[in-house]
């Protein structure tokens, strides 16, 4: 039922957004460039200060730049330290149920304890 194919409703939403964004952009340009006195003569006296026409884009760009650094930092903070048990196991592995071993069948998927994995990798088979 959820296909990405074009539909008439989607075309209408798209066109409305297109017109809306052009309207918003022209309004922003008018607010930023037309002198205050001209706006007052038109009767538009309660618009925000023109300071914000420059301040908001500046805030947005700095926020995007800081956001990159913030994301990097949050990632580093969320990484488990070397001495935590989260590097070895977690709640799902602790509570897993053992399926019975069947002959001639592929063994069921399970979390193998780290001691067993180490013995298989690093101790040579006799």
């Amino acid at each position, binding site marked *: 039922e959820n296909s990405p194919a074009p539909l008439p409703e989607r075309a209408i939403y798209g066109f409305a957004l297109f017109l809306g964004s052009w309207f918003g952009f022209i309004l922003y340009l008018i607010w930023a460039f037309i002198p205050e006195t001209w706006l007052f003569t038109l009767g538009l006296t309660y618009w925000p200060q023109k300071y914000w026409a420059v301040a908001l884009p500046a805030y947005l760009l700095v926020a995007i730049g800081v956001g990159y650094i913030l994301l990097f930092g949050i990632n580093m903070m969320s990484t*488990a330290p070397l001495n935590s*048990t989260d590097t*070895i196991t977690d709640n799902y592995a602790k509570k897993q149920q053992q399926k019975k071993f069947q002959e001639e069948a592929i063994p069921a998927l399970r979390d193998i304890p780290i001691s067993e994995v180490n*013995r298989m990798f690093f101790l040579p088979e006799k």
Partner: protein
Amino acid sequence: AMEERRYRSASGAPIALRRRQHSASCRELAVRCPRLQLRSLSAVTCAVWLAAYGLFVLSENSMVLSAAIFITLIGLIIYLHFVKIDQESLLVIGSLGIQVTSSYASGKESTTFIEMSQVKDVVINEAIHMQKVIYYLCILLQDPGDPQGVSEVVPLFQSSKPRLDCLIEVYKSCQEILEQRMTAPQSS
């Protein structure tokens, strides 16, 4: 019997692993890190003193120079006593426990002893550390309530960070002693 072999640390620095067999159930493994290089010490000292001289030229205050000398001396002492590790060693005694020792460049030694009943296993674990995935050796401590559980992970060789080939040698040596626990259980 004692033997020493050269390996590399995770960052490429040369390290040496020394293995001593004291008896059938007692082994000592020591990893020696490279000593403080004279060229890096001179480089850091020159950089700090040049910066201090630049500040002195700007501010005309001679206290900056004496402060720089003081900071360099105190910084070097703090680095040698608290940061620069010379040797990390692991002493595994089969029936008793495992002792982990770190010796600093100033001569200070910090020791931790873990009783054998608390030790579940010594394994090589992989984890993410500062944008790298490294192998490190760690002691798994037994959870008293749950025979399969791990209560704590004690990472070893944290400042020398040997590479996998060195870790495999240490792992095999430790496992030879830990296996004896299973075959010869002693009631205490």
